[in-house]
C-alpha cells in the first residue's frame, strides 16, 4: 500500500501581512521547498542599469557626473540602486542574477543612508525621501522573495524603521504631493511588525530599542500593549520599554500632564516616534482643563500652561485661542462651554516641533539611522 507523500507537512514561513503575501505568492507556487538565492553583487543588477539607461529612466541621483545634460545620461554603476517593481503576471522576480543576497542588501541600505539620506548637499529632502523610500522598498522585496530571516533581516529592517520614523517627523506638514504620511505609516507599520516577528526567535542587540519605539509610535494601542506585556522579562523590564510603558499608562489614565512630562525623557528618535500623538495630547489637556477649571472667576497663568504643554508662551496662547479658550493678557479663562474641537488651519503639528527638535542637537542623521548613540 502506498503511503501518500501528501501527508508530510509543508515548510511554510510566517508572513507578516497581506502585502507580503501578494508579493510572495508567485514564488511559492513554483519552488515550495527552496527559496531563491540571489547572486547579484551590485546594488542594482547590471541588466536593469542598462535597461533604464537606454530608456532614460535613471534617477538623477544615479547619473554619472558630467553626463546629466546628455540626451541619454549615463549611469554611475556605483550609485545605481535597484528600483521597486510591482509584481505582475509573466514577470519573473526570482532570477538569481537580479536578486541581491543579504550582505549586498545591507551594503545597499548603508549606501542609501550615508550617501543619500544623510548627505547635506542633496536637496530638497522630500526628493531624497522619495528615492530612499522606493529603494528600501525594493530591498524588502528582495528579502521577501529570498525569505531572508533572522539577524540579517533585522539589520535591514532596523535601519528602515529608523529612517521612516525620522521621515515621519521631518516631513510632517509637507504638502501631500510631496509626502503622504498615510503611505509612510503603512510601510512603517509593516516593517515594524516584520521586525518584531524576527525578534521572536533568538537574541537581538536592539530589541529593547524597537519594542519601545513600537509602543511609542502606537501609543494607546491595546494590541501593541498586550504584545509588550507578553515580552520576555528582560526585554520588558529594560529602561526604554519601561519608559514607553509609563507613557502609555499616562495616556490610558488620561493624564496628559504626566505624559508630556515623561516625554521630556525620550531621546530624539523616540520623540520622533511619539510626535504624531503630541498635538492630540495637548488638545486633550486643554479639554480636561476646560472642564476641570471651568469658572468665570478663575484665571490660569499662560506661563504655567505653556510649561505643562511643553510649548512656548505664544504658541500656547495660539493653541488656546484656536480651541475657543479665552486669552486675557497673561492669563486664560477656562470654560467648559466654550471649548471647541475644531482643527485649525494655521496651527499645525509642524509648528510645535520644538520638543522633538531640541533633542536632535548635533546628532548626525547617519548615526541616528544606524543606531549609533
Amino acid at each position, binding site marked *: 500500500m*502506498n503511503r501518500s507523500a501528501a*501527508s508530510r507537512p509543508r515548510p511554510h514561513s510566517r508572513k507578516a501581512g497581506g502585502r507580503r503575501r501578494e508579493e510572495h505568492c508567485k514564488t511559492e507556487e513554483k519552488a515550495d521547498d527552496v527559496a531563491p538565492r540571489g547572486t547579484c553583487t551590485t546594488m542594482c543588477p547590471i541588466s536593469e542599469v542598462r535597461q533604464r539607461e537606454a530608456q532614460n529612466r535613471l534617477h538623477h541621483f544615479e547619473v554619472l557626473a558630467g553626463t546629466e545634460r546628455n540626451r541619454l545620461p549615463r549611469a554611475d554603476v556605483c550609485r545605481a540602486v535597484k528600483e521597486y517593481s510591482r509584481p505582475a503576471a509573466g514577470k519573473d522576480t526570482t532570477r538569481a542574477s537580479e536578486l541581491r543576497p543579504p550582505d549586498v542588501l545591507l551594503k545597499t541600505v548603508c549606501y542609501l543612508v550615508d550617501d543619500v539620506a544623510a548627505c547635506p548637499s542633496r536637496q530638497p529632502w522630500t526628493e531624497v525621501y522619495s528615492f530612499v523610500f522606493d529603494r528600501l522598498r525594493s530591498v524588502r522585496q528582495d528579502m521577501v522573495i529570498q525569505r531572508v530571516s533572522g539577524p540579517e533581516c533585522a539589520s535591514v529592517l532596523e535601519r528602515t524603521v529608523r529612517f521612516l520614523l525620522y521621515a515621519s517627523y521631518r516631513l510632517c506638514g509637507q504638502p501631500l504631493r510631496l509626502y503622504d504620511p498615510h503611505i509612510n505609516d503603512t510601510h512603517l507599520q509593516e516593517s515594524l511588525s516584520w521586525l518584531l516577528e524576527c525578534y521572536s526567535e533568538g537574541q537581538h542587540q536592539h530589541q529593547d530599542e524597537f519594542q519601545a519605539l513600537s509602543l511609542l509610535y502606537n501609543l494607546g494601542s491595546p494590541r501593541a500593549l498586550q504584545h509588550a*506585556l507578553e515580552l520576555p522579562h528582560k526585554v520588558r523590564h529594560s529602561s526604554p520599554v519601561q519608559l514607553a510603558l509609563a507613557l502609555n499608562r499616562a495616556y490610558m489614565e*488620561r493624564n496628559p*500632564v504626566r505624559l508630556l512630562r515623561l516625554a521630556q525623557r525620550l531621546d530624539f528618535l523616540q520623540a520622533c516616534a511619539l510626535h504624531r500623538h503630541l498635538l492630540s495630547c495637548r488638545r486633550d489637556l486643554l479639554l480636561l482643563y476646560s472642564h*476641570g*477649571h471651568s469658572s468665570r472667576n478663575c484665571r490660569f497663568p499662560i506661563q504655567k500652561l505653556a510649561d505643562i504643554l511643553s510649548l512656548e508662551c505664544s504658541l500656547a496662547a495660539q493653541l488656546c485661542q484656536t480651541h475657543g479658550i479665552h486669552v486675557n493678557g497673561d492669563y486664560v479663562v477656562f470654560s467648559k462651554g466654550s471649548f471647541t474641537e475644531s482643527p485649525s488651519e494655521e496651527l499645525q503639528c509642524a509648528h510645535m516641533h520644538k520638543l522633538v527638535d531640541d533633542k536632535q542637537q548635533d546628532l548626525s542623521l547617519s548615526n541616528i539611522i544606524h543606531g549609533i548613540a
Partner: protein
Amino acid sequence: ETHLKIHYILPREEQVLEAIDTRDGVFCAELLSFKHPHVANPRLQLSSPEDKCQQVLEPPYDEMVAAHLRCTYAVANHDFVEAYKSFQAHKEENWYVSLFKQKCILAEQCFKSAEQQLQKKGKGKVGDMLEKAAEQLMSCFRVCASDNRAGIDDSKKWGMLFLINQLFKIYFKINKLHLCKPLIRAIDSSNLKDDYSMAQRVTYKYYVGRKAMFDSNFKLAEEYLSFSFQHSHRSCQRNKRLILIYLLPVKMLLGHMPTTQLLKKYDLMQFTDVTKAVSEGNLLLLNEALAKHETFFIRCGIFLILEKLKIITYRNLFKKVYLLLKTHQLPLDAFLVALKMMQVEEVDIDEVQCILANLIYMGHIKGYISHQHQKLVVSKQNPFPPLSSVS
C-alpha cells in the same frame, strides 16, 4: 488483500447505508465519529480510500466517507495536520446539520492536537492554521446563512450560531476581533436569535460580551456577560469561572465590588486584593495586587482593563480626603499628600490638578479647580456621585 479490505468495510457500510437511507443524521454521525470502535481497525486506515468508496457508495456519500477514512489514516499516523485538512463541508442535505456539527466538533479536536504539534514548530504556524480553519468555517457559515429553501424546522440557519461561536473562538485566539463584527450583525438581524439552544446563546453572549469589553463599551459588556453567567448551567463551574474572569473587572469599573464569598466559591482569589484596594482608594495596594498576579491577568487579557480601575481608585481616595477635611474648599496639597502616602512616584501639584480635572470631566467629582487659590471647590450637594450613576 483487496478482497479482505472490502469485506471489512462492508459490514460497516451497511450500517452507514441504512443510516443514510433513513436520514438518521445523529446515528450517521455516531458511525462516522472517532468514538466509534471502527476507527481502531488498521484495515480501514487508508490514505487513498476514494476508489473503494466509489465502488460501494453513491455520491456524495462516497466522498464523505472517503474523507473520513483519510482522516482516520492520518490520525493513526499522528499526522493531525493532514487529518484536519480532510474535513470538508457538504452542502446539499439539511439533515446533515447534526452530522455536520459532529464534524465541526471533530475538526476542533483534531485541530487542538494539530495545534499542539505545530506549536513545537513555532508560533507563526499555529496562527496560519487557525486562519485556514476560520476560512473553512466561514464558507460553511455562508452556506447556512443563505439557506432560504427549506422550511424553518429543517433550515440550515440553525447551524449558524454554532459556527459563529467556533469562529469567535478562533478570532479571539488570533487576536483579530474586528472580524467578529459581521457575524454579530448577522445574528442581530436574524429572527431565530432567541430560539437557539441556551448553551449556544450563553457561549455567544460570552464572546460578544468580551468584544464589548475590548471596545470599552462596559454597560453592554455587563449586560452580555451577566446573561452568560446567570444562564450558564449550574454544574458547569469551569464555564462560570471563565465568564466571571471577564465580568468582574467590568462590574468593578461600574462600581460594583464582588464579595469575598463569590471569589472563594469560584477560586478567583487573585481579585481579592484588587477589590479591597479599589474600594478603599488604596493605590499602593492596587499596584501591588496587579504586580503580584500580573502573569494571570495578562494571560487572561484583563490586565489593561484592571489598570483602568486606577481612576476609580483615585476617586475613592479623594473622596476620603473630602470626608476627612469636612469642607467644600479643599487644598490641592491635601490630595498631593494622600498620593504621596500611597507611594505614587514622582507626582507633583500639576499632576494632581490633571487627575482632578479628569475626574471632574468624567463626572466623578462635581466642582472646579481654582489654580490661584490652589484649591478644589466642590459642590455642596453630592460632590462625589455614586459610581453606578456615572456612565
